């Protein structure tokens, strides 16, 4: 279903404000052997800015709200207006027609199902200790990532009918968005339209149908070729109780079609998917079991677009070493650099790095997967120890380059130990730890074997020194070892080559500092970070960096 963020706001007085303010300064300096051997790069560099995103909400009449957000940005180091920017960050309007039909136009945030339109989290962000959250909040905010919504421009509407028989309620949503505008001598305009219809019955059975079509407009360019990608998703859910324990069963399936009209070389591919899951909740925690099948040829622009774009250049030391090597995106950039992230929907499968995520680089919509998932959330072992566990086992449906198929395993564990509760301390004292293990294997002859193991250890300590002022420290250790075959795809997403890559990598992130919360959303933090990326295959030089960072964040 569509849940525009705008719809969550309430109509208040004629004019009201919200927004975000952020001050950030960081100074990065080369460390380790690189500091001695790299005579080309600067020893250190730094930068900072003050940002004020001021949101104006104007309600000319009760049923209409116009919202805009103006960004005032001042980079440190400028003066007399130099390096100062004023830009429009958001402009939208929403309203209700006759208290029945809601609509939003302009910048809208859209989400549908996990197979039609969904903005999946970046890799290795699950179960991340909370001391790293400020980086994640910064990255997500700068890229307009709000939950799993995609920010698009267009129009959206929704309305409901309440009934008083077997069918209790009918919900309808629809939207039209312009994903890519007109390009001079370029590609045609890319539009996305979609809609949902959900029937809620009186016996807790819900039936929903969701449709999204991403397509190009032939008349908007001189091109004779236009892309199309309709996706249909039908969901059936049932909620009930078993021995006083509530559960929910969800069964969904659908299909997609993707092709290019006017291009005789382009294949039209059709794919389908199916997912079944059961969710139950108890006092001890929540359990979720699932099965998923996604066809090799399933394509969904809205659900398979990735957040991280590995083709983007990193902000911190994009080039390093005396060979002026381009630094590839690594864990430190995934954690802290908003510029490697993508804000636009992609009509083709984006690249990914199997070292960081192989099992589901395109979320649940990852094509060519069949397997099982199980996770336990909010598992309260005692009042001072809680845990979250997730395990996944998947296999390919069709082998890539061979009849042997990859098998994928992923296990994740996160635990939170509240020492203040255990030791009856007055001030909060939390220790968090998580582990994320992923393996990819493929058998067969020596030339086709795959054995890639990656593991991420994360941990943090947070001790409240005085009220709301915490000393924090955190660490992430990432190891990847083995080999993988990277598929290279042509313009139609068809695999036309493989590159055999060996991995032997170790990445370390250490942070320590203080953090003071005025409220949940108003805080500042000052830290020293140390990053190290070591490629033991010697393809890339070791990269070591120290960073002093200050951030003040305030959500108005």
């Amino acid at each position, binding site marked *: 279903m569509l849940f525009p963020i705008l719809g969550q706001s309430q109509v208040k007085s004629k004019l009201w404000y919200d927004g975000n303010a952020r001050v950030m300064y960081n100074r990065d300096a080369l460390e380790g052997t690189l500091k001695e051997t790299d005579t080309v790069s600067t020893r250190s560099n730094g930068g900072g800015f003050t940002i004020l995103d001021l949101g104006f909400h104007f309600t000319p009449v009760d049923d209409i709200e116009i919202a805009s957000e103006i960004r005032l940005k001042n980079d440190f180091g400028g003066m007399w207006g130099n390096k100062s920017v004023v830009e429009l960050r958001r402009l939208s309007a929403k309203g209700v027609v006759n208290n029945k039909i809601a609509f939003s136009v302009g910048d809208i945030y859209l989400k549908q199902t996990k197979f039609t339109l969904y903005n999946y989290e970046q890799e290795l962000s699950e179960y991340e200790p909370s001391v790293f959250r400020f980086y994640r909040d910064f990255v997500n905010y700068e890229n307009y990532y709000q939950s799993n919504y995609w920010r698009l421009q267009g129009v959206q509407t929704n309305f409901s009918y309440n009934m008083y028989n077997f069918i209790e309620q009918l919900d309808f949503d629809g939207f039209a968005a312009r994903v890519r505008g007109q390009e001079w001598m370029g590609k045609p305009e890319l539009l996305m339209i979609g809609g949902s219809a959900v029937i809620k019955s009186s016996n807790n059975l819900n039936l929903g149908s969701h449709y999204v079509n991403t397509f190009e407009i032939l008349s908007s360019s001189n091109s004779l070729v236009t892309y199309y990608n309709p996706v249909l998703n039908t969901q059936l859910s049932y909620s009930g109780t078993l021995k006083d324990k509530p559960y929910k069963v969800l069964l969904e399936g659908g299909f997609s079609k993707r092709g290019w009209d006017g291009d005789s070389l382009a294949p039209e591919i059709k794919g389908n998917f199916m997912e079944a899951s059961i969710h139950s909740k108890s006092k001890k925690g929540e359990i979720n079991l699932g099965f998923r099948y996604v066809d090799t040829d399933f394509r969904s622009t809205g659900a398979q677009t990735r957040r991280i774009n590995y083709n983007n250049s990193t902000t911190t030391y994009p080039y390093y070493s005396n060979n002026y090597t381009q630094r590839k995106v690594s864990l430190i950039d995934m954690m802290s650099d908003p510029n490697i992230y993508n804000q636009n929907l992609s009509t083709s499968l984006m690249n990914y790095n199997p070292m960081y995520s192989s099992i589901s680089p395109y979320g649940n919509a990852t094509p060519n997967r069949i397997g099982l998932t199980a996770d336990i959330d909010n598992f309260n072992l005692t009042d001072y120890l809680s845990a979250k566990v997730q395990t996944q086992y998947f296999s390919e449906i069709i082998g890539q380059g061979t009849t042997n198929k990859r098998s994928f395993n992923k296990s994740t564990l996160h635990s939170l130990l509240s020492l203040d509760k255990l030791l009856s301390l007055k001030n909060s004292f939390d220790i968090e730890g998580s582990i994320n293990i992923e393996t990819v294997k493929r058998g067969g*002859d020596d030339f086709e074997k795959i054995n890639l193991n990656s593991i991420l250890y994360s941990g943090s300590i947070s001790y409240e020194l005085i009220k709301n002022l915490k000393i924090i420290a955190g660490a992430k250790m990432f190891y990847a070892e083995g080999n993988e075959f990277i598929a290279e795809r042509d313009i139609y997403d068809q695999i036309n080559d493989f590159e055999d890559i060996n991995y032997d990598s170790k990445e370390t992130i250490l942070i320590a500092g203080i953090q003071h919360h005025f409220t949940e959303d108003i805080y500042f933090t000052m830290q020293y970070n140390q990053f190290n990326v070591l490629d033991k295959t010697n393809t890339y030089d070791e990269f070591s960096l120290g960073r002093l960072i200050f951030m003040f964040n305030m959500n108005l």
Partner: protein
Amino acid sequence: MKNLKFLLLTLPFFFTSCEKDKIEGPNLNDMYGELTIIESLNVIGDSADFSVGDNMYFTASFSKQVDWKIKIEGLNSGSVKIISGKSNAINQLNSTWDGGSTHLPFFISEDCDIQLTFEMYDDTIYRQLNIQGEKEYNNENTVLITDFENGFNPNFTGFFNAGCTKALTNGGAGQGVKFLQQFGTCDWDWLIGYVDYYSTYWYDQNELVNNPSQVYFNIMINGDSTISQASNVPNSLFKLEFYEDENGDGYYDANTEDRYDYEFDVDWNGWRMVSFCYNDVDKLVLATSGGNAVRNPSKISNVRTLLLANPASGFAKADVDFLIWSFGSPILN
């Protein structure tokens, strides 16, 4: 509701059985697998008589798709035929040989060595074959001007500057036994010499197809790749002039009829077949008046071959043999 639960539980097993056997992308075995010869090279149709239309082919099979090359070399003629492909099997479809040559001279009735080699691999397979009868290139799809086997037709007139040589020679021909030697040094003129091959005296008197895109001129040229000391370019320049008798009066009139020229450097050593489509002869020497500026192969009354060289550069050489027209494709297609 029990039925629904049953349905939910059984669906995963249904989808598990939906596994497919095909693969996505190129075969890794072809890219990274080891090359194993499953079936060694065999010659099918050995001792073929190519003169009566026989042909032969080769068979072999490998563990992966690989770039392969079969080289057939005549032990007496020195002619070479190359057959190549990329596949995991050599068979009739990709290796049929009709006795033609890739490198001149032509094969004769002789024994040949065969080498099968693979790109990126050291494996080599050796075989031998025998040719009972050599391929006959002159057939219903060709018009032979001359192959000099019956001598030099005295009606083919020409001119060679003093001190330059035009001589019919036995042995070492591109085709058959005889060929026309042309060489010399002329320090006062670009022209070494020329020969006019009048259509009236061509060996075959079949009319050429009047479609210039279907008519190919072929000539064997034996060069020595001498480089000019003066201009540092190949010393020998070869020129062909095609005279069209448009009004059919048996006489070419430079004032009213078309002539098409084609020239090239002889920058190679040994025999080579030069073939080109008459449609590609793009240098039209316009008549002062008249001339239809349309290529009319059926109206060609004379083919003149000229050997030219920079007077300052010294020695030039371009022996010729087997001047022949072919229809539809070059003679060594």
